[in-house]
C-alpha cells in the first residue's frame, strides 16, 4: 500500500521541526487551535522595519501540522510582511507534496494550514493596531476565515 501522506520528508520534518520555541518579547503572538483534534499552535514573531526577523512556534500538533508549521516558519523568516501577507496555502502544501490534501481531505487540510491561519490572524491584529482603520487589511481576516 502506498502511503503518500507519510513520506520520509514529512516524518523527518515533523520529528525535527525548525523554529520551535518561544520569543522573549514578540511583536506578534497568535494562538490558534483546531477544535476537532486538539491541534494547538502559538506563533510568535519579531518585526523590524517591516521585516519578520525572527519567528518561533510552540504547541501540540500531528505530523502534518508540525511539518507544515516548520516549513511555514522557514519560508517566512527574514522575509518582509508583504510577503507573509500574500503567502498562499499552495506554497506550503507544495513544499511537502501535500497539494492533493486540499481536495481529498477537507479534514486533514486543517492540520496542514493551522499555522497559516495563525499567521494571517496574527498579522491582521498587528497591522490593525499599527494602521487602525486601514481597509487594505480586510483580506487578511477573510483569508484566515476562508483557508478551509
Amino acid at each position, binding site marked *: 500500500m502506498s502511503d503518500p501522506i507519510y513520506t520520509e520528508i514529512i516524518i523527518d520534518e515533523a520529528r525535527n521541526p525548525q523554529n520551535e520555541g518561544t520569543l522573549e518579547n514578540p511583536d506578534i503572538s497568535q494562538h490558534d*487551535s483546531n*477544535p*476537532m483534534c486538539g491541534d494547538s499552535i502559538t506563533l510568535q514573531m519579531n518585526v523590524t522595519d517591516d521585516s519578520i526577523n525572527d519567528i518561533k512556534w510552540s504547541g501540540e500538533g500531528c505530523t502534518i501540522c508540525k511539518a507544515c508549521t516548520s516549513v511555514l516558519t522557514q519560508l517566512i523568516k527574514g522575509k518582509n510582511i508583504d510577503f507573509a501577507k500574500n503567502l498562499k496555502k499552495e506554497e506550503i502544501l507544495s513544499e511537502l507534496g501535500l497539494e492533493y490534501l486540499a481536495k481529498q481531505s*477537507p*479534514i486533514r487540510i486543517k492540520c496542514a494550514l493551522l499555522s497559516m491561519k495563525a499567521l494571517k490572524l496574527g498579522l491582521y491584529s498587528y497591522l490593525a493596531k499599527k494602521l487602525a482603520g486601514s481597509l487594505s487589511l480586510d483580506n487578511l481576516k477573510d483569508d484566515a*476565515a476562508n483557508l478551509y
Partner: protein
Amino acid sequence: MQSIESSIENIRKDFPILKRKVRDNKLLVYLDNASTTQKPKQVIDAITNYYNNYNANIHRSVYSIAEEATEAYERVRDKVAKFLNISKREEIIFVRGTTEGINLVAYAWGRKYIKEGDIIVTTEYEHHSNIVPWQLLVKEKGAKLEYIEINDNGELILDQLDKYLATGKVKLVVFSLMSNVLGTISDAEKIISKCHEAGVKTLVDAAQAVPHMSVDVTKLGCDFFAFSAHKMLGPTGIGVLWVRKSVLETMDPFHGGGDMIREVHKYETTWNDLPYKFEAGTPNIADVIGFGSAIDYLSQLGMEAVRKHEMELTQYALDKMSQIKGIVIYGPKDVSKRGGVISFNFHDVHPHDVATIVDREGIAIRSGHHCAQVLMEKLNVAATNRASFYIYNTKQDVDKLIQSLGKVSELFKL
C-alpha cells in the same frame, strides 16, 4: 423554465405517497401542505443513500466516510446560501425547524439585549412559534409584547407599527412573511425599511414563504430569518436559522456541548467559529443531506414556476369554493397578495366535522386553530378548515374537495 402544469404528471410520479389509498380505498388527495409537504423519492433516496453508504459523525474524524459525510453536510449549507442569496455561509445555522430557530434567537439574542421596558412587536396573524417565545422573554425581562392588528381583508395595519416605533422602545419586530392561515403575504419591504430607519432589528418567520415563492434574504434586509425543511419537500427534524453576521457575532451561545467549542477547560471555555458555535452536539446529519435534495428539486422547478402554479390553483379554488352554500372564506381575495392557503368555515358546522367528512373521501385538509389562536380570537372563531396546495396538486384535487364540501352542506342541511 417549464411550467409546473406541463410537467405535473412527472412531478407526481416522484411522490410515492400520491399512490396511497386511504379509508375505503380512496386515492389520497393531500391538501395539508401548509402543515407539512410530501417528499419526492429524490429526498428519500438521499437519506437512504447516506445511511447505506457513508453514515458517520461529522467534523470530527479523519476516516473516509466521515469526510464524505462532512462534505455532504457542509455542501447543503452552500445550497441554502445559494437558494436564498445569502453571501456568507457561516450565517446559516441548522436547527430542528422554524420553532427552534425562533427560540434560539429569543434565548441567545433576546435574553442578552431585551431589557425592562423594551417592546417587541409581533402581529395578530403569527403562528404560536412567533408569539410564545416572545411572551416568555418579555415576562422574564419585564418587557412588553405588542401586536400589529389585521384589517378585514386579513392584511397588517402598518400604521400601527409607526405608532409603536414612535415610542422609541421597540427593540425587535417579528412577523411572518406569509400567514399560515390567511395566506396573506406581508409587505416585508415596508416593515423592514421602517424598522431600519428606527434602528430596530427584524425577524422574519419564513416557514410559509420559502417553500412557495422566491425569496432573496440579502435584498430583504432583515436580521433574523427562520424556516423549516419539512414544509418544502424536505425531511422532518431540520430547518434553518439565518442571522446577519454582525448580529450573530454579538450573540451568546445557546446550547453547550460538542462541536460548538474551541477549547474546554474545567472552568472556562472558548467558542468555535460561526456557525458551529450554534450547532452543539451531533447534528441531524441525514436530514440535512435530505434537505439538500429538496433544495435541488425546487431549484430545478424554479420558484417562480412554483408560485405561478399555486396562484392558478388558488384562483381556481377560490372561484369554486365561494359558490358553496354556507361557506365563509378568510384572507385576501387577490391571489397576487396571498399564497396557496385557503381557510374557510361553514356556518354552524365545526371544522373538525368538516375535516372528518372530507377525510372519508381520502381528502386531507386541516381543521383546527393552526397554531394561531390569537388570530382565531380575532376572527372570532375557535377553528377553521384549511386547504393548502403544493407543486403536485391539480385542479382535479380541487374539484374533489369542492364535491366533498358539497356533501357537508347536504348532511348538515345548510
